[in-house]
């Protein structure tokens, strides 16, 4: 197992380098220019100066190598410095956003908490809802509960979040006035009252995202349960006279969870990716909003860094899912 993990980690290095190059080229060749953000009232000579000062006019490979150096050398050094109070990275050029002229990594750290709290808790809640629904739906296949579960999953799948989000705002913010329609990122949870406020402002975006996540995972859970319920060992267990409870929750559920755990693990990177649309609708301003904003503004360093971090997370969680699989399923051994 250990050698497998190490081998996979080593293989990830060329993969990630290749991904970074592809992302860089894609982002660079995409149409659009930071110039489009400069109003027409600014004369052409001044525009040119602004672009030059950003370094956007340098040749492609110069910018790519610079970015590599900044991402793999300068930024880790800066992180080391802030952790241990040293100053190795002093005077080094960090990855700087073209929009705000500030270090990209600082902005990402600033955005991470709201994304993790909103999108993360939506994921956890989604999973917690999905598992029981999936289990019971499969156990009582074609019952009214199963039909209802299928219906809700269908809604969660097919109704886009920009629609459910706005509907929730209209009902619960505009008409009933229960929840705020705009997320307050400067709210600090210090006491009971501010905690309640935090729960209130998280309620709607979390509900929208949890519905979507639950829809997906409950379907996986259901079909995996169905597969296992039809297996011979289930009949054997029943024949041995085991309680139905034990059969379903011990034998079937454990086996059915194996593929579902993989799906859940593979879904975790999307938490960090944020929820572009939902964040925009509720103005959560997490990583998703950061990314879409940067794309609109043709802020290449920001888009490049964010997408690359997502790529790293996806590669990492793929590995984690594989390792988990090996641990959960005795039939799979990597050595």
């Amino acid at each position: 197992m250990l050698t497998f993990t190490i081998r996979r980690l080593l293989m990830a290095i060329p993969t990630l380098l290749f991904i970074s190059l592809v992302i860089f080229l894609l982002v660079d060749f995409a149409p659009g220019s930071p110039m489009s953000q400069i109003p027409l009232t600014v004369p052409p000579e001044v525009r040119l100066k602004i672009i030059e000062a950003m370094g956007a006019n340098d040749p492609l490979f110069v910018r790519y190598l610079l970015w590599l150096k900044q991402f793999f050398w300068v930024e880790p050094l800066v992180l080391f410095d802030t952790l241990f109070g040293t100053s190795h990275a002093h005077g080094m050029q960090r990855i700087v956003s073209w929009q705000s002229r500030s270090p990209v990594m600082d902005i990402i750290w600033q955005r991470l908490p709201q994304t993790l709290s909103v999108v993360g808790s939506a994921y956890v809640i989604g999973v917690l809802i999905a598992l029981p629904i999936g289990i019971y739906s499969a156990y009582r296949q074609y019952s009214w509960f199963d039909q209802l579960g299928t219906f809700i999953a269908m809604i969660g799948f097919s109704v886009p979040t920009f629609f459910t989000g706005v509907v929730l705002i209209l009902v619960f913010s505009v008409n009933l006035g229960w929840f705020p329609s705009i997320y307050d990122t400067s709210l600090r949870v210090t006491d009971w009252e501010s905690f309640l406020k935090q729960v209130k402002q998280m309620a709607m975006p979390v509900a929208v995202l949890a519905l979507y996540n639950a829809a997906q995972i409950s379907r996986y859970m259901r079909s995996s349960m169905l597969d296992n319920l039809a297996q011979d060992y289930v009949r054997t267990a029943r024949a041995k006279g085991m309680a139905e409870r034990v059969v379903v929750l011990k034998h079937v559920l454990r086996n059915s969870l194996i593929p579902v755990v993989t799906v859940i693990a593979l879904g975790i990177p999307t938490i960090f990716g944020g929820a572009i649309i939902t964040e925009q609708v509720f103005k959560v301003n997490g990583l998703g909003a950061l990314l879409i904003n940067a794309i609109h503004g043709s802020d290449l360093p920001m888009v490049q860094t964010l997408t690359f971090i997502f790529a790293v997370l996806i590669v990492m969680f793929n590995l984690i899912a594989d390792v988990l699989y090996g641990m959960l399923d005795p039939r799979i051994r990597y050595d």
Partner: protein
Amino acid sequence: MKLKTALLGAAATLAFAPAAFAERGADGNVKVLYSQAVSIMNAYLSSGTKDVEVGSLVLEPLAGFDNEGNVIPRLVTEIPSVENGGISEDLTTITWKLTPGLLWSDGTPVTAADAVFSYEYCTHPEGGCAQAARYEGIEKVEAVDELTVKITWTAPKPNPFTAFVGATSPILQAAQFANCLGTAAPTCTEQNFKPVGTGPFMVTDFKVNDVVELAANPNYRDAAKPAFATMTVKGGGDAAGAARAVMETGEFDYAWNTQINPELQSQMEAGGKGVFVSAFGTLVERIEMNLTNPSPDLPEGERSTAKHPHPFLSDIRVRQALSKAIDRNLLVEVGYGNAGRATCNLVPAPALYASPNTDCIEQDMEGAKALLDEAGWTVGANGIREKDGKPLKILYQTSVNAVRQDFQALVKGWWNELGVDVELKSIDGGVYFGGDPGSPDTFQKFYADVEMYANNFDGTDPEPYLAQYLCDKAPKPENGWQGENVNRFCDPAYDAMVAELATTRDMDKRGEIAIRLNEMLTKDSYVIVPLVDRGRLSAHSNTLGGVVLNTWDSELWNASDWFRIK
């Protein structure tokens, strides 16, 4: 509506009275929503309106513009003029006198050296200052004494209110930005996010592209202001969401640029929690005619250049007919409602420079048809006009934007009625306005017959704006397709008159010349076909008093006067 406005006005005046006795910070927190989030507080490093405006709460220029476009003092005792000796007789120098006793928010005195530093900061060759145009034509800026700033121009400057006037050219604190000159400018994150200023507020917390928390400046020059102790400027979302937060849920007090369609506007007004306010500046949505041939059959580098005149748009009768066929009032009704008005002018304001011409407002389909007949374009088979066997076919491009696509569809309908075949094209704004010389789709390259966009000018003086239409300012391969004379308009008489404007000092005379220049581009030649004078539409809650919308300066120009209506 009139009555409602009058009543609101009366209510506002009444509400103003108690405000006079208010004290600083008495009204708690005010929440402002910008649908485009703020990226930086330093106007010199961003040309984005949102950044400049929110930055103006902290950083102030020596003087600003009021809602009528007049220059008003901010950090100075009076506005210099030739009469009071502040401007020299030959118009080559202007001298500003700082108000004695002014303090930065950190308690240190504001001096003339800060203004000199701000000039050096923005004109540094490697700084990439976004507002460099504000300081064009300056020979030197010097601090005559602690409180006197003297600007010397390289040539007589009829409009000296560019440097240090308006939110786009604020004064930075020399002490804070001393190490941020040139290439170091972008690395000064702390300074750019939390500048020390003289404005009514100062930054307490800055989250990039998200939220800015501000608190009343304890050293603000008016001891009774601002009425609010803190201000929150949240960013993100879209115009409709921003309007909703003020008009329907009442979560925010002020929403910036809530440009939504008229139907949604009236729906939201029914929410009853706020009001929309609008004001007009110089932003004009227009159709530009290409006087050169954009045909893809021409070799690259000659397409859309002066080498090949346009096959039919070079005929004024065709251009005029296309203009006549448009019902501008309907466009306003569909796209902008109260926040727009039909116009025939490229320079719609200030009054001094605005031509009284309204000849294009009335749609005249018959007249348009007659003009095309006269020009020899006869209706052929399938209803398309043709001449010498060539059909009258137009490629009409603009950026992707809901209102613009509505406009395209309407205009296409009218032009079809004339017997003109119209092909529509919409290009992503990032590309269209991106100015990339390698892309065929930029508005400067203009590989189409007509195109639509909006433009305006900074401040109140249209001279640089009109000077963009000089013959040699046409975008072409030799200058990397830069410039805004996208029509490739070229008229020696126009060029001569722009030169005359540059040396004319008398204001009335300047107005006359500017009006002539505007008319030469519009009603004399129909090279530019103005459609809509687009106002600014913002929303504020019923409990926020003192809001006066200003299109000549930062929209938050008088945030120090805002107060809570109780």
